């Protein structure tokens, strides 16, 4: 693989290879010295046109654990604010011969454009409301670590699907790994065409949520109220908040963060034993290491058919 631009264009073999590599990095992470020399002498540029704490820091630490030199450029204070075009910025950065450019942009397709303008590998760290592939891979990794497999799993993605790149990547990733996905939220925020285009089920209320193995809640942004997507936060909370009453004892809970406590999730479920939210952050690091490894060092060494497949542990909701 040269670039990671989206899950839509990813094969299951590609995904499996990255996930297996992430498992081996998890082992490294348990050592005292957490750094490996794989990318020593290579430069990784993080080009972030949107503010981000967790994704940027996760990519930075991942690159450093692989011994790469890292430069992070944020939109504020850079030439971007002086009106330089994305193409010119990429040309400038490419002059430093980076091994990879990790880009976050408010615009769909930005990463794919960059891939056409540079020799470096490009990682899409979020392009508009389109895709956020590293998030989806870390979510799959998190679920596999807990359940062994996603095959046949029922996953409900609940909330503002319309404005969520996480949802768009996750629905592809979960589907790719054999799960059945339901998109749930207010009709104004869950486009039925997305269900038609992807084969996901659509639900406008939480009836049937009890059948889910995993509930994946999305961040509900306050500005959506002003845009008449939902009448009030109160009504949203009443209809869609995942609380201890709605979260069944055998269900797992995920959220891409940052969480609006008391809006999409009630405080008690965030801290419950079923919540995988902090595990997701931990997974982010090893999965992003695996992504960088795959793109920059994986061409010869990582083979999809390498080693036996891990045995499948029993799933939640399945009699042992």
């Amino acid at each position: 693989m040269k670039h990671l631009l989206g899950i839509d264009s990813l094969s299951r073999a590609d995904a499996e290879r990255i996930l297996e590599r992430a498992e081996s990095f998890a082992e490294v992470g348990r050592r005292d010295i957490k750094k490996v020399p794989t990318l020593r002498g290579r430069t990784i540029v993080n080009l972030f046109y949107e503010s981000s704490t967790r994704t940027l820091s996760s990519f930075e630490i991942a690159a450093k654990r692989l011994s790469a030199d890292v430069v992070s450029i944020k939109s504020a204070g850079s030439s971007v604010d002086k009106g330089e075009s994305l193409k010119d910025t990429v040309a400038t950065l490419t002059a430093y011969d980076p091994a990879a450019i990790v880009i976050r942009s408010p615009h769909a397709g930005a990463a794919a454009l960059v891939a056409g303008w540079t020799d470096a590998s490009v990682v899409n760290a979020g392009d508009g409301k389109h895709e956020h592939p590293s998030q989806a891979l870390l979510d799959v990794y998190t679920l596999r670590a807990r359940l062994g497999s996603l095959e046949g799993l029922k996953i409900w993605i609940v909330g503002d699907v319309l404005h969520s790149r996480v949802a768009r990547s996750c629905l592809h990733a979960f589907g790719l790994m054999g799960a059945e996905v339901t998109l749930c939220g207010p009709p104004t925020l869950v486009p039925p065409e997305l269900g038609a285009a992807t084969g996901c089920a659509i639900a406008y209320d939480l009836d049937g949520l009890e059948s889910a193995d995993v509930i994946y809640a999305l961040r509900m942004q306050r500005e959506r109220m002003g845009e008449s997507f939902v009448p009030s936060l109160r009504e949203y909370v009443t209809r869609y908040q995942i609380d201890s009453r709605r979260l069944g004892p055998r269900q797992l809970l995920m959220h891409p963060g940052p969480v609006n406590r008391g809006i999409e999730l009630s405080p008690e479920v965030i801290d419950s034993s079923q919540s995988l939210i902090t595990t997701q952050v931990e997974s982010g690091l090893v999965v992003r290491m695996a992504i960088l490894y795959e793109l920059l060092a994986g061409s010869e060494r990582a083979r999809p058919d390498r080693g036996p497949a891990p045995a499948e542990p029993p799933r939640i909701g399945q009699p042992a």
Partner: protein
Amino acid sequence: MSAALASRAAEPADLVIRGARLLDPRQELDAVRNLIVRGGEIAELAEPGAGTEPEGAEVVEGEGMLVVPAFVDPHVHLRVPGQEHKEDLETGTRAAAAGGYCAVVAMANTSPPVDSASILGSLRELAEQEAAVPTGFLATVTRGIGGEELTEMAELRDAGALGFSDDGLPIASARVLRRALQYQRLADGVIALHEEDPELSGDGVMHEGEVSAVLGLAGIPAASEATTIARDCALAREEGARVHVQHLSARASVEAIAAAKAAGTSVTCEATPHHLVLTDEAVRSLDARFKMNPPLRTEDDRAALLEGLRDGTIDCVATDHAPHAIEEKEVPFEEAAMGVTGLETAFAVLHTDLVLAGTLPLELVLERLTAGGEPFGIPAPRLEPGAAANLTLIDPAQEWTVGEDGYESRSENSCFAGRNLTGRVLLTVAGGAVAYRQRSFALGVAE
């Protein structure tokens, strides 16, 4: 072609096209003839081998070629004044001639917009220096395309405005449009309408549907166009006004026009080649060359446009030729400028994708390509003795790749770039003068 059109002075053509197939569906003409142009007028449609060829006339051996009335485009953006880095009158009209057009109607959303007689006057003077084909200019309906105050429509008409349009933007206020339609009784001149409800379009950048849902792009619903068409046709009918609806893109829009026509509204409308052959599937690539307003819609919408073109609900083909500089398109889709060029590819695209594919007869496509002036009072060109020569010579079998030899237009934002097309314009005669010769195509001289 008409006093309302302006173009640079050019020598009237003496031209003979021997043995080509002359096709003019309006006159039910379909025959192999010697076409003789003398002093810029069609002199004879003689039997093969017959006719009086003017001495020294240029001669084309036209066997296997097609001669048709030249096309008229009711909707182009020539970008003058103010945006000459995208296009100017010379490059834009040269592109028109290269596409087989003998006349074009230029939109008024320039910078500054054509909203005063002085701007219009200087533009027409410039066209008399630069325009390769006769060019008509619309003036805006509202000052500065602000959507609020009417322009001095009567004075603009006296200064040569072919009609009026705020194209690029809708006239959002029904009240303002109604006043303009009432004022048409004094000023005359058809009002051409870009139909869109800004409230519904919002910050949409493509058709709202499955593709936009997957890409996470804000969509422009089909209802944005169709509801506004219904509103404006109702107003036009009530005021007894004449309107021309621009660039239809959706099934519901075709239905709204059909209903308005059935109710007796004085309305005409147009559709573009790109809406007739492409759908929003093309946008999956996130290539900004497929970004335009109205957006490419679904296969069902496309089918409705084709049916509308066939049954006459849609009166004519318009290119909505909208040149943009490279740097305005080499950006993420959401940031890119709306619009695509179209003059140089219109015929070949429709010929390849609709005629050769068996979807529409060539005669029908030619009728719709030549009818673009009619909403503005410019009759369609005809192949008949005594008429000014407005004709296009086409090699219907020649294959070519869009963009491989560059473009006559200053801009390259064609949504058909790289496409292999069949059918090429070799020669265009506009207003009695030769306006274009394809580079590889040589002429002889009569002895």
